[in-house]
Each structure stands twice: as structure tokens, then as C-alpha cells.
């Protein structure tokens, strides 16, 4: 007889505009267990959980709850089934009290008016039950520590009848002691029969806390194992063991020149604790790390977008500290940011205006007035150099496909004749064909002697493109791997801080 699962998801499919995010994912979770869901960035964990929580709808597949086939169309359906999610960003109102937040869905417990006394008392009871009696129900949520906010978030879901609790990277923002408290709480909930789905990159936590593990990769189910039947090494293999498709264009002989950028012991904010690296002319330096490892923050600090606290930055051997992006741009450093739409492009303006934004003087006549012909020719030339497809340079950038948008975001640095360009997740949200084109672009620039920094969360991409990869973890460089030592195991071990 088949075991009765609290949750059984089978063959779940989901496509987002051209990207096949889930290709037959499945998951089985028992009542009263803590079940880890792991996989690389982009493996589809969060998408699968959003489907379970009703935040997005599946294209195909079945969901069974307690042996009954169920359709979850929206968050309210999930809610009725007792499925609650604690997201990385909390859904709390910081200016309301703890009690108000916990009972926000039913403040009056069925009556017409709010009875504050009862409300605070019930909140206190709930908190006491969980072992967090020291949280004041009347305190404003915004004044609590992040960990306590998380507890409030959990309480909020428990104020309803919760059967399944989904936690997405809950410990990412917590301190060591806070994590201990959270774990105690989760174990307690598990004993009460709640099923907990736990998404995390931290393997130590998973081995300590979870009963079973489901591994996902590239939108598929890989394997489900009992925690006590597997060791860390094997688990990493399951997560990354994939065929490296040959989508990375070969680079002709790499000619590396002088050091363009040297960063030494950089500190900037909590996410950048001690970072050193060099970039040579014609070199592609990859940056690997988990989300939140401080890669983007490092580059923003170097670029002058965020303040540097200490450390040394050498630009062509000369010590510099860019106070704002303008200074960096003037010296020939460019950055294609992570969020193309919010940071990389002025979406609602023309392709031409986006391309020449860094080089307006070049397309003006001697009286500093824009020359329509000059600007159009200049734009066309730059865009042709990187094989961009567009109808007219006067079209808005928002009309282009993701890959071509990315090329326009890059074009402005070519227009500015940058000597070193930072790419932050350059292929995010573009399809496979466009990815290869972007790789070609990057190689072409490197061949011209431009120094390239490439942040990416996709290991095959980094290993296929880079001359060396620098791995970061919690704001620090944990390793530099040269091309001949590249392996996914190497990278992920350094990124996760495993043995």
C-alpha cells in the first residue's frame, strides 16, 4: 500500500516566457517531518514552492494533499489548505504591533470591534507556546530584531490552522544564536505534526535539522534521500552533476596584458568584509558565490556606487577611490548591472539614447548640439559590432528581447571605450541562444584587451568563460581557482564553506 503523504506533487511543469523553469518536478512530504529542498540557484525550488503556496499557477502536474487531489489556484486556496510560507522578505507591517500583525486576518475574532486586551493576550499565549514569551505583543514589529520578526511571521501563520510551513532560506539573515532559537521552534512544530519544507543552501543546517532531502536540478526532481543515509560530498554531487553542454564558444589564444584593476582587502558595509582580486587586460575573471555572498556589493563599491570603508583599489597601478560612478566611468570602468530593467537601462527611452548616454559629446557637433546623423551612425556602428537586432534606433529599449536589451546595456560602455567592464549576472532571464551571443560578445571584448569581471550564479557559465574564478562566501574571498583546476565541486565547496 502506498504511504499517505501530507503533500505529494507530481510532474509539475511551469514555463515563464520562453524559460522552462520546471520540467517535471515532484515532491513528497510526510506529516510531522522537516523536509529539505535543495538545488543550485535557478534549479526551480522557489518556483515549485510558489506553486504550492498559490503565488503562481502550474502549467501541468498534480498536487495531492492528504491523499486528495487538489487544485491550488491562488494564495487563498493554499491558505484554506493550511499551507503557509515564510518568505525571505517578510510580509509584516512594521508600524503595527506584534499582536496586530499576528492576527491581521482576523483582528476581531468574529465580533464587530477589536478587543485589544484579548488580542494581546492571545498573542502572548501563542508566543509563550513557542517559547518566545519575551516578545511583547504590544511592541511595534519594526522595532524587533530580524529573528524575532521571523518568529512573528511564523506565529502569524500559526494563528490559522497550519499543516504545512514553507521556509525559504530562513537563516540567511539570522545570527548564530537566533538560528538556534529558530531550530528549537521548528522541532517543536514538527512534534505537533506540522510538515515543514525547508529551503537552504547551508548544508550543515540541513544535516542537523532535516529528516529527508529532495534534490532538484534544472527544474527536475533528482532524488529523494534520508538525511542519515547520505553524506555531504554525495549530496553536492547530486546537486551539480550535470552534463556540460557545449554552449561556450572557444576562445582563441588568450593574450593577457597588464593589470588593469587591483583590489586589495576591500571592506564596504556588512556584505563586503575582505575582498582582494586582480584583473588583467584581456582576462575574464569570474565571481562565484551564493546569493548574498557579497559579489554585487563588492562591485558596486569598486564602481563608486556604494561607499568603501577601507582597502586599496589600484587602477592601472595608480591608487584610486571612485566616490561616485561618474568618476569610475571617466577613468574607463563600466558596469552592466544585475537588474537590467531597473539599473542597466532607461527602458522607456530610445535605443539610441541608451547607447550614447555615456558618450554624448561624441555625437554632438562643435557647438555641443546633438547631431542627429552623427548620433544615429555612431549608435548603429556600436550595435552592429555586437550583433544587436533592432528595427530602428529610435525604438524604445523596452521593445527589444532580453538578450538584445542586455546588448544595449553593454553598448553604452563600448561607446565610452571602457577598459574594464563588470558584468553582473549578464545572462539572467535570457534564452539559451541569446546567452551564447552574450558569451561571444564578452569573448570578443576580452580579445580586444578589455578586462572583464563576470559575476554569475551559474557554474557552467563561469567555468566555460573565465580564466580564473574567485569564490566568495559571506563577504570574503574563500578561494581563487585557475582554469585548469575548475570543477563544480571545487566551486560549490568554497561557496558553501563545506569540508
Amino acid at each position, binding site marked *: 500500500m502506498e504511504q499517505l503523504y501530507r503533500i505529494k506533487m507530481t510532474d509539475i511543469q511551469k514555463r515563464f516566457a520562453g524559460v522552462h523553469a520546471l520540467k517535471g518536478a515532484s515532491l513528497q512530504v510526510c506529516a510531522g517531518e522537516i523536509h529539505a529542498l535543495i538545488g543550485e540557484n535557478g534549479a526551480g525550488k522557489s518556483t515549485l514552492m510558489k506553486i504550492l503556496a498559490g503565488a503562481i499557477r502550474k502549467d501541468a502536474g498534480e498536487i495531492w494533499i492528504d491523499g486528495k487531489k487538489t487544485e491550488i489556484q491562488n494564495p487563498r486556496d493554499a491558505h484554506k489548505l493550511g499551507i503557509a510560507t515564510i518568505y525571505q522578505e517578510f510580509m509584516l507591517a512594521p508600524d503595527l504591533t506584534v499582536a496586530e500583525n499576528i492576527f491581521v486576518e482576523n483582528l476581531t475574532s468574529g465580533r464587530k470591534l477589536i478587543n485589544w486586551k484579548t488580542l494581546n493576550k492571545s498573542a502572548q499565549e501563542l508566543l509563550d507556546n513557542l517559547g518566545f514569551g519575551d516578545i511583547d505583543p504590544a511592541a511595534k514589529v519594526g522595532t524587533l530584531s530580524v529573528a524575532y520578526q521571523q518568529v512573528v511571521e511564523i506565529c502569524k501563520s500559526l494563528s490559522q490552522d497550519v499543516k504545512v510551513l514553507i521556509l525559504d532560506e530562513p537563516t540567511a539573515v539570522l545570527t548564530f544564536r537566533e538560528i538556534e532559537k529558530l531550530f528549537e521552534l521548528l522541532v517543536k512544530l514538527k512534534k505537533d505534526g506540522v510538515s515543514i519544507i525547508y529551503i537552504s543552501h547551508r548544508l550543515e543546517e540541513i544535516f542537523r535539522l532535516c529528516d529527508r532531502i529532495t534534490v532538484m536540478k534544472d527544474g527536475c526532481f533528482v532524488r529523494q534521500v534520508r538525511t542519515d543515509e547520505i553524506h555531504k560530498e554525495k549530496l553536492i554531487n547530486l546537486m551539480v552533476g550535470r552534463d556540460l553542454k557545449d554552449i561556450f564558444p572557444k576562445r582563441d589564444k588568450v593574450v593577457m596584458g597588464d593589470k588593469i584593476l587591483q583590489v586589495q582587502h576591500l571592506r564596504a558595509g556588512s556584505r563586503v568584509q575582505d575582498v582582494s582580486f586582480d584583473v588583467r587586460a584581456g582576462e575574464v575573471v569570474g565571481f562565484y558565490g551564493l546569493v548574498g555572498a557579497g559579489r554585487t556589493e563588492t562591485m558596486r563599491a569598486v*564602481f563608486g*556606487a556604494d561607499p568603501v570603508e577601507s582597502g586599496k583599489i589600484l587602477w592601472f597601478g595608480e591608487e584610486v577611490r571612485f566616490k*561616485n*560612478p*561618474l568618476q*569610475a*566611468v*571617466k577613468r574607463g570602468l563600466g*558596469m552592466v*548591472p544585475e537588474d537590467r530593467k*531597473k*539599473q*542597466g*537601462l*532607461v*527602458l*522607456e*527611452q530610445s535605443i539610441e*539614447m541608451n547607447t550614447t*548616454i*555615456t558618450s*554624448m*559629446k561624441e555625437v*554632438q557637433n562643435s557647438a*555641443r*548640439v*546633438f547631431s542627429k546623423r552623427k548620433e544615429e551612425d555612431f549608435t548603429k556602428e556600436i550595435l552592429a559590432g555586437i550583433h544587436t537586432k533592432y528595427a530602428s534606433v529610435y525604438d524604445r529599449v523596452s521593445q527589444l528581447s532580453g538578450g538584445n536589451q542586455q546588448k544595449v546595456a553593454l553598448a*553604452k560602455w563600448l561607446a*565610452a571605450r571602457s577598459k574594464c567592464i563588470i558584468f553582473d549576472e549578464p545572462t539572467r532571464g535570457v534564452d539559451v541562444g541569446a546567452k551564447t551571443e552574450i558569451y561571444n560578445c564578452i569573448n570578443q571584448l576580452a580579445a580586444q584587451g578589455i578586462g572583464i569581471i563576470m559575476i554569475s550564479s551559474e557554474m557552467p557559465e563561469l567555468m566555460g568563460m573565465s580564466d580564473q574564478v574567485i569564490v566568495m562566501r559571506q563577504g570574503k574571498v574563500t578561494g581563487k581557482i585557475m582554469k585548469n583546476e575548475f570543477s563544480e565541486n571545487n566551486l560549490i565547496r568554497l561557496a558553501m564553506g563545506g569540508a
Partner: protein
Amino acid sequence: MEKEKKNYQKLLDFILTNNTYFILLLLFIICSAASEYFLTMANLVNICQQYAGTVIVSIGMLFVILTGGIDLSVGSVMAFGSVFTAYAMVEWKLPIILSVAVTLLLGTLCGLFTGFLVARTKIAAFVASLAMMTICRGAAYMISHGTPINTPAGTISQLGTAKVLPFLTWLTVIAILVVALSSFFLNKTAYGRKVIMIGSNEEAVHLAGIPVMQHVISVYAISGFSSALGGVIATSRTGIGSGAAGQGMELDCIAACVIGGASLSGGQGSSVKTVVGVLVLAMIGNIMNLLSVPSYPQDIIKGIIIILAVLLQQGTSRIRQH
């Protein structure tokens, strides 16, 4: 078939790009039909004369709106400008040209200060300019002791009525110059380009190495300057420096920009279309006066027409996105 579709698309595009002008044309036809006095030289010259100041102040407002900000202080700065010009002439006995220059300088300084608050201290533009609005209105009444200041006859008021050609007053010429200049700056120079792009996506522009803060401050200075100029013009038309000048001007200017297709979230708008926006408002006011509609219902009708014009704008831009 294919070609027909393309032509249709072209026509649709043409209508959508120029919908502001169609609104104006439509209104013009309606007005001409509604009153026989509308389409007379005297009336048209009068409209141009009367709304020259509004055009100039609206252009200043447009620069601010392009960056995604708003300047509620324009009406008050205008009052301050109106009073101060008269005051400098009457009390300090300054020559006209000097009074005007000092007034324009002070107006620019008011704008600079508002801009500084917005760009540097990150006070919301609405709030910063609201504060400047009450400060300037207060200053205007304080300087004038609450009573209008009469300028000597035949001095500044001569400018207000002087004509270049029989159908063209100096004020209209000044307004046209301001519009032409602003249109040139917005479309042809790096400064204007940057202002527009900042309004579209401040973060991306900042990361492209453009000093956002200076540009944001500068648009408020421009707005302050043009408001003060609007105040000078108000004084020149009546010969009186009045603390009550420019009441509600900020709303007319915002309405003009929006009717002219400007987006309050920034990055979109044009000088010439803003003028059309002013003309739409002007014609509505004018025709109702000609038809002797009492002033309270006038305000209601004006409000309704603004809503209709903006709805039409939104509707057409939505069609365009599909």
C-alpha cells in the same frame, strides 16, 4: 492586405503621437462655433497676451515634472516676483531692468533651495515645494504689507501692453522665446537629454555615470526662474505688484503639462505640447467668459475637461502599448 495594415498602423501612430494637437483643434472648432466673438483678432491676441505668463511658468514646471518631481511653489514664487519687482522700483527706486534682474535672481535662489531639499536631503518634492509655497506667499504679503504696490504709470506696465506688430505683443514674443529655448535645450543638448533620462530611470542614469543630484537641483532653479519671470510679467500687465498673484497657478501649470502628455512619474513631456496644454486651458476659460458662464460653474467645467483630456491621453498611450 499587409500594406493596408501597415498604413493603418502608421495612421494610428500619427494620431497617437499628435493627440494633444487634435484635442486643441477639436476645442478650437467647438469654440469657434459656440461664439462669434471667439474667432476675432482682438480675442485671439488677448488670449496670447493673457496666458504668456502661464506658458512661461508651465515650461519651468515641465522641467521639474520631467525629472519625476513636482513644484507646488510656482504660484507663490510668482507672487513674490510680482511684489518684489514693484517694491524694488517704488521703494528702492531701482531702474526697471535692475529690479527685474534682482527679482529673477531671487526666484532662481528660491528654486535652488527647493531643489537642494529635494536632491540632497531627499525630502519629497511635494513636501519641499509645499513649504516653499507658503514661505514665498508669506514673503510676498509681508513685503507688500498685504496691499498691492502700484508702480509709476508708463514704466513697467508699458512692456505689458507694448506690441511688436499689431497682432503680436512683447509678452507673447517673450513666451515664444522661452518655449523655443526650452525645446532646444530638451531635444538638442546633453543637459536636456540627461533631465529626461533621469526622470525615466534615475538609478540607471546614476550608474551610467551622470551626476543626478546637480541636474535635479537645476530643474527647480529653472522653475524658480521662470516663476519669477511670470511674476514680473504679471506686474507688467497690470502695473501692480500683488501678493495675490499666481493663486492656483501651480495647478494650472501641472494641468497644462499633463494635458500636453507629460507623465507625472517623469521622463515624458514636451515644451510645445505643454504650450498646447496651456492653450487648451486658455480656450476653455475664454469661451466660457464669452458665453458669460458664471465663474463657479466655470471651475467645474474646467475640471471635467481636464479629466477628459487626460483620460484621452492615457487611453491613447495604452492603445500604443499593445
